[in-house]
């Protein structure tokens, strides 16, 4: 029942297929690296940036700032991902909120902003 020709062919396809997918994606790597490098926005350090760059020198501070950035990005990404799933929530997608949701959120924001202004909203 086993067809050895088929198996040979399958093995061949497997080897070629696996090699090719790596080759293609390696090329993609190169292309993407190049693309991002070539189109990178020209670094025009403003005064503020320069100041920041010089003032923060110890590694710990850098690590902390990096972590904070990562957290922020992660949260943003997670929110984005959630949005992408429940796609109707995307950008100005149709019907993202019900009338009262909008109202209550506005309300909540107002109240929260009033009471805890020193403590920026937790999330």
């Amino acid at each position: 029942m086993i067809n050895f020709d088929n198996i040979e062919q399958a093995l061949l396809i497997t080897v070629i297929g696996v090699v090719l997918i790596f080759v293609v994606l390696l090329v993609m790597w190169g292309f993407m690296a190049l693309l991002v490098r070539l189109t990178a926005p020209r670094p025009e350090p403003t005064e503020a940036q320069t100041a920041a760059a010089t003032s923060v020198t110890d590694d710990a501070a850098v690590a902390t700032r990096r972590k904070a950035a990562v957290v922020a990005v992660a949260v943003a990404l997670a929110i984005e991902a959630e949005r992408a799933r429940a796609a109707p929530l995307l950008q100005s997608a149709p019907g993202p909120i019900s009338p009262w949701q909008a109202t209550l959120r506005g309300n909540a924001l107002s109240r929260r902003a009033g009471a805890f202004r020193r403590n920026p909203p937790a999330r």
Partner: protein
Amino acid sequence: MDVQELIAVLTQGIRAFTWANGVMIAAGSLLIYLAIVRGYEPLLLLPIGAGCIFANLGMSAYVDGAWLATIYAFGIETELFPLLIFIGVGAMIDFRPLLAQPRLVLMGAAGQVGIYITLLLAVLLGFEMKEAAAIGVIGAIDGPTAIFVATQLAPHLLGPIAVAAYSYMSLIPIIQPPLMRLLTTPTERRVRMEYAPRPVSRAAVLIFPVVTTVFVSLLAPAAAPLIASLMLGNLLREALVVERLSLAAQHEIANMSTLFLGLAIGATMTADRFLYSPVTGFQWQTLMVLALGLFAFVMDTVAGLLFGKFMYFVSGRKINPLIGACGISAFPMAGRLAAQVAQEEDYSNFLLMHAMGANTAGQLGSVVAGGLLLALVTGIGIA
């Protein structure tokens, strides 16, 4: 019109009904149950389940002129539905995390190895090469790719392949974590990855989909429609000036295509092709496809994790091997899952950006792998 004739007419439906139809209706109901109560990919499993029930009540995709056959001919035979869904998927993907860390793209290659291991096993089990390849492509772990490839290689297996693809996809949170814990050490899972991405300019984000389409289409013409529709969607998203079209792709077009795709695929799941045919007996291949599909999911994850470990050593322990598991595609669940498992070990370890990068790489890899497979199997003229 005598009484006998009358009874014949009125019992027509019941007489055509077999125990196998009954079992298939139960199976369709199970899919609907899993969709509604367990939340397994409801957007697809519910229509597939409904289509399966309808198919076993005389409304299959194989009854000329029946409504589900019309929908099948309109969107599955022409391959339009998976492509239209892909336009919507593309409009939901952000490639910035990948562009910012392009080396992660290799993860998307490793996560496709399961396709070929499954193909090998299927051939060993006696499947024809085309069937084996169609089964293997479940390992692309990407619904539209699997359906697009299976429609061309083995349309008669479309039902079980689609069911396997979507039901296991919803089981990712159950399938992957044990394998992650088994194949990686706590030390490895605790690896923190630097996040110092290059800034990604708007130009890069706009050039990327165009050049990728050209490049992949030239290398794997069989994958061209897939990559083209995915990247078209992404271009609509990133263009910002055609929000109407981007939203239409994500909503109107995606919703309708999803509903009708599910129904039409379910409508192929007739008892005699799926379970038991009076002529050819039990259709063991259905169970085998389902089992091989699960195998493909496991193999993909294993291959991804092992490649992750390889990268861990090569990079001098700077790459967390968990993100290897995101290369399987299953966008975006796999990405979030890897980040979660990493946090189980160390709550302050944030891998999400890297995981999402590898995950979108997996999406790219799936499309490319599907296209290469089509080229290799059909192009070389294997019977």
